[in-house]
Each structure stands twice: as structure tokens, then as C-alpha cells.
């Protein structure tokens, strides 16, 4: 079904960020997704308000388990429109400390969400292809885009570098062959950086 036929879809997103300790674990992710989904959907808001009620009307904080169940309930609301969840830069979620590590916990959550096979859930994760992430995500045998192999992305990089070199006031004063060398070198090396 095309989205335009459904008329309505909900998008919630989260950026893992190694510079921000509030954006580095499963709890941060769940808190954000629950609030975003409940902001846009009345049934989701009702589900979250029940969690609120059962936690002393906000006197206690919910556990990760309770929030995971709450998220799953939101995603399985019978009339739920397509829901797009986008998680960016999963590799910026640390895997250095803790058993399980914060990253392992997020991977467990993704595994759980994908495992319930919801037709309305569209989940997208971007990350560097680090071994632990690859091991879990490749198990789903789903759609994968390897940016390194995409000629479209290489062309994007060439276009961008060309644009900057030709529009930057300082670079515009360079000799043409220097500018060409910069464009060629940066474009060639970009894929391997």
C-alpha cells in the first residue's frame, strides 16, 4: 500500500551521538521514541498515559522492559498507520563497557522489534559496518545499502567537492589545475577515509 493511500504515517527518529551522553543507550532511545510517537498518535498517547498511571502518575520512572513493552504495544495498535522508526549512527552507541554493553542492548531491542514482524513497522538503522552490529543486523536478511559500493554516493561526493571548490571565495582564486587536483584527490580518497 502506498503511503498516500493510507493518508497518514508517523515518523520517529533518534540520533546516537558520541558527543552527547544522553544519546548513547537504549533507555535514551526508548524515552525519545515513546514521547515522539505519543505526541502524534492518540492511541499511542493513551498507551503511554497508562504507563504513566501505573507509575504513580509519574512519581516513578519506567524500566527499560516496561518501555519496550509500551513501544511494542504502540506499534501493534490495530488501527496503527505505518510507523517509520529511524535510528542514526548506531555505532556511536558505545560497546566498550557493561555486560551487555549499551550497544548490545540496543541491538537486542532492534532484534525484538524486527522479530515480531509487524507489517506497519518500517525500521531503518544507519551505522558504520562494525563487526558486532553487522553480526546482528545481517541475520535479518533484509534490505541493506552499502554506501561504500554506491556509485550514486561517489557522484554526490564529487558534486559536493566540486561545488565547494568553485564557490568558496578563497578557492576560486586558485589556479584551475590546483582546483582540479583538489577535486580529484578528495573525490578519490573520500571512499577510503
Amino acid at each position, binding site marked *: *500500500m502506498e*503511503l*498516500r493511500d493510507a493518508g*497518514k*504515517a*508517523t*515518523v520517529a*527518529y533518534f*540520533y546516537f551521538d558520541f558527543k*552527547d551522553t*544522553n*544519546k548513547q543507550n537504549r533507555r*535514551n532511545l526508548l*524515552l525519545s521514541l515513546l*514521547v*515522539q510517537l*505519543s*505526541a*502524534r498518535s*492518540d492511541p499511542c*498517547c*493513551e498507551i503511554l*498515559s*497508562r504507563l504513566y*498511571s501505573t*507509575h504513580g502518575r*509519574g512519581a516513578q520512572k519506567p524500566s527499560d522492559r516496561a518501555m519496550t513493552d509500551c513501544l511494542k504495544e504502540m506499534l501493534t495498535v490495530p488501527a496503527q498507520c*505505518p510507523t517509520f522508526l529511524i535510528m542514526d*549512527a548506531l555505532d556511536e552507541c558505545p560497546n566498550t563497557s557493561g555486560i551487555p554493553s549499551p550497544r548490545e542492548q540496543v541491538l537486542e531491542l532492534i532484534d525484538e522489534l524486527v522479530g515480531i*514482524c*509487524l*507489517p506497519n513497522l*518500517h*525500521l*531503518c*538503522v*544507519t*551505522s*558504520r*559496518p562494525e563487526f558486532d*552490529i*553487522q553480526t546482528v*543486523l*545481517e541475520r535479518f536478511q*533484509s*534490505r*541493506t*545499502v552499502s*554506501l*561504500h559500493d554506491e556509485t*550514486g*554516493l561517489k557522484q*554526490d561526493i564529487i*558534486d*559536493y567537492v566540486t*561545488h565547494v571548490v568553485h564557490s568558496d571565495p578563497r578557492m576560486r582564486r586558485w589556479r584551475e589545475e590546483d582546483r582540479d587536483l583538489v577535486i580529484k584527490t578528495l573525490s578519490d580518497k*573520500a*571512499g*577510503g*577515509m
Partner: protein
Amino acid sequence: MAAAELLKITHGVDNRIKGVDERIQGVDDKVQEVGDKVQDLDDKIDQVNCSSFHNTSILASESPDLTGNQLRDSLRQWLSPADPSTNYNIAADAHHVGTSQWFFQGSIFKDWQSAGSFLWIHGNRTCLLAFCNPLLLIALQCCSGLGKDHSLVCPSSTSLSA
């Protein structure tokens, strides 16, 4: 004589087997009854869950001191999530017009968008930076024909118009 006795014994055993059969049937019936009762109980639990769901819904929507927006504010304050729009804005500002079109016009994105599924986009840091993630949100909005007023969840006043 021996044959007659054997026949008698066989007949006795036969009767006992029938007796055992009847008892098994009795046990079977009782298991069935227990099954039915469990089903009844299950239905009743469902009813109770359903009515408590509605009660909570009514509480949430009709509570005199909490309007929908106030309730959402309370929920937001309670959970105090980090704001992902700051990262979104940084990525959006760094976005070079025209990039990533190959992805949004390609079959993998369209398949993912139309069928519920999982999509993993991976690449090294440079590739990920060059691949502009905010476009993903923008493309969703454009392709879904959604109005400006609703449906895309943005925690701040982030503009998603392409």
C-alpha cells in the same frame, strides 16, 4: 476345556479393555471441560482488560485537569527525553541540495517504504556524512503526500519542507 477357559479369559480381558477405554473417554471429556473453562476465563480476562483500557482512555481524555496537550506535556516532562532535533538540524544544515537522490529514487528505498521491513544503511564515516539522513525524513514526507500540518514527528520547530 482349556480352549473354553482361554476364551473366557480372553473375553474377560476384552471387557476390562473396554472399561479402560470408557474411563479414558471420561478423562478426555473432563480435559475438554477444563479446556472450555480456561477459554471462558481467558475471554473474561480479555473483557476486563478491554474495559480497563477504555476506562483509562476515558480518564486520559476526559480528565478535567488534563487536556490532550497538557497530558502530552506531562508525559514529556515525566520521561524528559533527549532532543534529537539538534542532530537533525546539524545534518540538515550540512546538506548539499541534490545529494542522495539516487537512494530515494532506487528500488531498495521504495520497497522499504511500501512494505513493513528493516533497512540497514552502512558505510564509513565519510559515506555516512555524505549520505544525508534528514533527506530520509523529507523523502518520506514528500512521497507520502502528507500535509505540512501533521504526521511527521519533530520534537522542535524543525522545518521538513524540502
